[in-house]
């Protein structure tokens, strides 16, 4: 195993503790980190090692080396050039602007209240601080300006009704937490077989393996639970006017869920149904929202859930549904179509789906009962009817999903 080589860049200049290039690269790494790159000590060390093999005065070579060592994904890869130009060539955005604008990116990092320099605190720490901290945490965005409009800064962002979130920074906070929730949900739904003493199937491999120690005779029988094939996810999102406040967030949330699932399909509907799976696979969230906005332009009129599901059942279901499909419908249930139509289509959907989950933001309001004809008609076909007005309600879904 190769030990990391000690890179020799010569003697540091007088008055400095390390060679200039090392300082410069470390600072560049910090700028990248502020811009969402995953860069730590190891990556910086790799970068320096790489630089040791080239002529560091050749900026082209340097760009190649640093880009390779310090990027981790396509987003980084694409952003890299601008940041490199700005830092090493003095072009483009001023350095100070990169650092501070970077801090408002999705992975916001809170500065320690002790005034230490930006050690990137882990997202878990942020979350805990917010729960415990109360007063100031939400108010202080990294740029230092307090914001109080809309959701009260003291409230735990996970409990705030999504419709009330107005400022982009708070939305980013929410999306950050949603990202982790999406990862957990994905983990739940894709667990492998587990050793289970009371399982129905005999685990041949373990049994044989253990039989070696009993002279080749399988005395101990190991069993396992039947392996569950992973779920396929199909999501329907209502983008009509009444859902407007929520659908923006849900598009981001679905975007994250889809990123985690290998095979998932997404559809939006209002007066009719459109598949948006490819649009939601777009990595860049802003671009994704733009593309979605273009699709829904010009849709108006009352929501027709039944019609939309009919389109799905007719044109897409055969291609998209497997025996282990989990259907998730996100809608407030307001429907201008005939309730019988909706009921009929839900029945057809239920025949193909393993489970149907309906998320309704209105369930979060106290006193709401699904009395609207549409919602009532759909209810018998739904396996899990849950509120979805804030992140906490979505988080509460997670254990439910495990039981499915």
């Amino acid at each position: 195993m190769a030990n990391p080589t000690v890179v020799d860049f010569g003697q540091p200049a007088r008055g400095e503790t390390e060679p200039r290039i090392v300082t410069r690269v470390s600072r560049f790494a910090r700028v990248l980190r502020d811009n969402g790159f995953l860069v730590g000590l190891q990556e910086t060390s790799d970068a320096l090692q790489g630089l040791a093999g080239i002529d560091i005065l050749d900026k082209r070579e340097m760009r190649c080396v640093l880009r390779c060592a310090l990027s981790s994904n396509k987003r980084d890869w694409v952003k890299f050039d601008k940041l490199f130009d700005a830092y090493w060539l003095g072009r483009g955005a001023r350095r100070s602007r990169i650092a501070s604008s970077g801090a408002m990116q999705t992975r916001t990092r809170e500065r320690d209240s002790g005034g230490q320099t930006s050690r990137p605190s882990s997202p878990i720490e942020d979350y805990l601080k917010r729960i415990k901290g109360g007063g100031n945490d939400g108010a202080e965005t990294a740029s230092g300006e307090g914001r109080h409009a809309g959701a009260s800064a003291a409230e735990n962002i996970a409990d705030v009704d999504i419709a009330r979130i107005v400022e982009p920074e708070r939305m980013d906070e929410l999306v950050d937490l949603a990202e982790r929730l999406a990862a957990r949900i994905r983990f739940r739904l894709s667990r492998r077989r587990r050793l289970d003493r009371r399982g129905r199937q005999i685990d041949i491999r373990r049994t044989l393996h253990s039989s070696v120690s009993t002279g080749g005779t399988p005395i101990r029988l190991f069993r396992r639970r039947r392996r569950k094939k992973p779920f396929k996810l199909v999501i329907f999102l209502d983008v009509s006017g009444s859902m407007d406040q929520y659908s923006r967030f849900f598009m981001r949330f679905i975007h994250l869920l889809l990123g985690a699932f290998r095979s998932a399909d997404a559809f939006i509907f209002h007066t009719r149904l459109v598949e948006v799976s490819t649009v939601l696979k777009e990595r860049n969230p802003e671009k994704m929202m733009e593309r979605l906005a273009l699709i829904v332009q010009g849709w108006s009129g009352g929501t027709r859930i039944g019609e939309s599901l009919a389109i799905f059942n007719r044109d897409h279901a055969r291609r998209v549904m497997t025996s282990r499909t989990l259907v998730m419908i996100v809608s407030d249930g307001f429907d201008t179509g005939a309730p019988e139509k909706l009921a009929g289509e839900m029945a057809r959907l239920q025949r193909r789906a393993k489970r149907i989950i309906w998320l309704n933001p209105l369930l979060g309001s106290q006193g709401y009962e699904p009395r609207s004809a549409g919602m009532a008609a759909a209810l018998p076909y739904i396996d899990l009817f849950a509120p979805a007005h804030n992140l906490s309600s979505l988080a509460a879904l997670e254990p439910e999903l495990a039981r499915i």
Partner: protein
Amino acid sequence: MMQRQEQIQQQLDAVGYVAAPQLAMAIAMMDQLQRPLLLEGDAGVGKTQVAKSLSEATGRRLIRLQCYEGLDSSNAIYEWNYQRQILAIKLLESADMDMADKESHIFDDEFLLKRPLLEAIMLDEPPILLIDEIDRADEEFEAFLLEILSDFQITIPELRTIKAKSIPSVILTSNGTRELSDALRRRCLYHHLDYPGESTEIRIVLAHYPDIEIALASQIVRFVQAVRREDLQKNPGVAETLDWAGALIGLDIKDINHDLELLHQTLMCLLKTRADHEAMAPEIIERIVGKVA
């Protein structure tokens, strides 16, 4: 390392793989820093081919682990050959040996089935280890992989800890169908591979079909690149370009403008789904040919 980068470019070029300087640098760094290289990009841009070409160019052995959902350590690292072990036990039953000897006979190298990851570290000459489509495996597998890629040693409880005889060059490829874990991304050097530019792709066609007319090669590449800009379900990759070029050469077509109907029939090389075939109606083909020919 600069020389190494140029050398790699030349070596790959010699076997028909046209690599951009950035990619050659990534490979050079992979070797020098002994870190795995993660290659990400759309299907068909040539990620898997890099490893194959590198193996061909350098003469190093290529060990390939094709990932899939449900891949686990017994398929990827090692497994005991239970059937033979049980046979051996039966045979040993009557033999006059003491227990410890019998046991060490059973748990011996000869009963160990070496899967790709174990094989890759047991060679005298460092091989190229291609871990293909890591995004098709699951997170659990990524964790196994990370351990191995950090220490390059594998512990087999009944046997011993096997330390690497040589450190392989590791290339991982991903189509981006799911998000890889941060830990894996940090462990690896990264390179995002896009479709080649026009002149590069023409060079690739020329490298594979040395006798083709440059004018035809140019038409072919420009056509395919235009098709990639249409919103197809499955974008044609570099392999498809080469297939199509081969088909056109075989049919003795010198100019794609010449017989549009025949051309349309050859498009099965580029269009792989029914929806795409339907989307590329004759009028659209005609329009594109008009632009590039």
